[in-house]
């Protein structure tokens, strides 16, 4: 091994003792040590084996007094410890787990009796007292024989059926007609009311609107052609006109009067004219 000054110095700092040990092989063995070693080991093993067996052996009669000696040691040590406890000293030698003679003979009965007493105390309600000792879960004899039938009969009891008589379509139509009739009549009455509520002394808005339409469309003659005989007579009478006289005057102005010769050829010419104008009785107006 190469000595290194630096390493040696460092080693000295770490461990001064180790540094003093020279670097020579300390694990040397004598020459030929390993040649005979296996033989030597085997010999040593063979020689040691009986010695080991002997170490495990015990003297004759060792186990005869062993238990007594152990118990004696334990007792002596326990007695030393127990001397310190007064409570345990009082109990020393007494079997604390003993029961009176015949204790277990009546134990079950006693327990049941105690349980019963407790139950009686708890269930002191009057309701339960009244049924005390009665089997409340009993049913009349043969109860289950007819039970299913009874249940089924109750379930299947049909609800009260209110029969709806099939209405004939006539009534349906009649009802519809009645309703629509009422609607129609109410509409008519509303319109009629509206018309009659107009103050006749004022120019009705309808009249002015219609007049405006007539002027706009220049439809005077067209509208006049739709006016009826009765309407004209009514209007003229309302306006203070003598309708029959006015009619005759109208014929006269229109040069529509019969010629003189007509009267000579037909004496009913005047009647015809008056008839033509529906003036059968001129005096009536």
């Amino acid at each position: 091994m190469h000595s290194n000054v630096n390493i040696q110095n460092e080693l000295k700092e770490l461990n001064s003792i180790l540094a003093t040990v020279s670097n020579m092989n300390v694990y040397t063995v004598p020459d030929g040590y390993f040649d005979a070693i296996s033989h030597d080991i085997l010999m040593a093993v063979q020689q040691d084996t009986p010695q080991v067996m002997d170490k495990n052996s015990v003297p004759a009669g060792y186990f005869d007094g062993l238990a007594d000696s152990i118990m004696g040691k334990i007792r002596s040590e326990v007695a030393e410890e127990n001397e310190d406890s007064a409570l345990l000293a009082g109990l020393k030698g007494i079997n604390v787990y003993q029961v009176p003679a015949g204790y277990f003979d009546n134990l079950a009965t006693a327990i049941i009796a105690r349980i019963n007493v407790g139950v009686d105390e708890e269930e002191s309600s009057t309701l339960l007292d009244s049924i005390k000792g009665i089997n409340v879960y009993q049913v009349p004899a043969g109860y289950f024989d007819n039970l299913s039938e009874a249940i089924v009969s109750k379930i299947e009891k049909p609800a009260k059926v209110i029969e709806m008589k099939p209405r004939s379509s006539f009534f349906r139509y009649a009802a519809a007609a009645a309703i629509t009739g009422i609607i129609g009549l109410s509409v008519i009455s509303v319109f009629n009311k509206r018309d009659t509520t107009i103050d006749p002394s004022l120019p009705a808005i309808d009249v002015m609107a219609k007049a405006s339409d007539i002027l706009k469309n220049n439809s005077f003659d067209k509208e006049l052609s739709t006016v009826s005989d009765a309407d004209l007579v009514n209007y003229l009478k309302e306006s203070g006109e003598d309708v029959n006289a006015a009619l005759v005057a109208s014929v006269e102005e229109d040069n529509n009067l019969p010629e003189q010769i007509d009267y000579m050829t037909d004496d009913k010419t005047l009647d015809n004219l008056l008839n033509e104008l529906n003036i059968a009785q001129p005096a009536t107006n």
Partner: protein
Amino acid sequence: MKHILLLITLLIGSISFAHAQEDEPDPVKREQKIKALYVAYVTQQLNLNETEAQKFWPLHSQFDGEIRSVDHNLPELERQQRILNIKKSYQDRFAKILGSAGRTDNFYRVDAEFRKKMVDKLRQLRQQNNRNQRPNRRN
């Protein structure tokens, strides 16, 4: 579904029925038609503008009401006299709206013309009607 359709049909039917009733003989409506013709005729003949018409027709309505209130059963001359008096009493008020006495005069003329037109229309209606029927009557 069928019933709903039926109901709808009936409803529409009743409404149109109601409308038909509305156009059916309604004296007020029919009278209004001739009145509308009158308003249209007078407006056209007098050349009334909008502002004049707005004042004229309310006054005319009042005038018309008074004319109509004259008793039809009065002796004819008496009746005519009363109508004439009403017309005279309204002359100034009409003139105020129409702007001149001449125009007012014209109104009374147009008013009479319209009635004459109605009488002519009535005569035409009756003559047409009766001439169509006369051959049957004579035989």
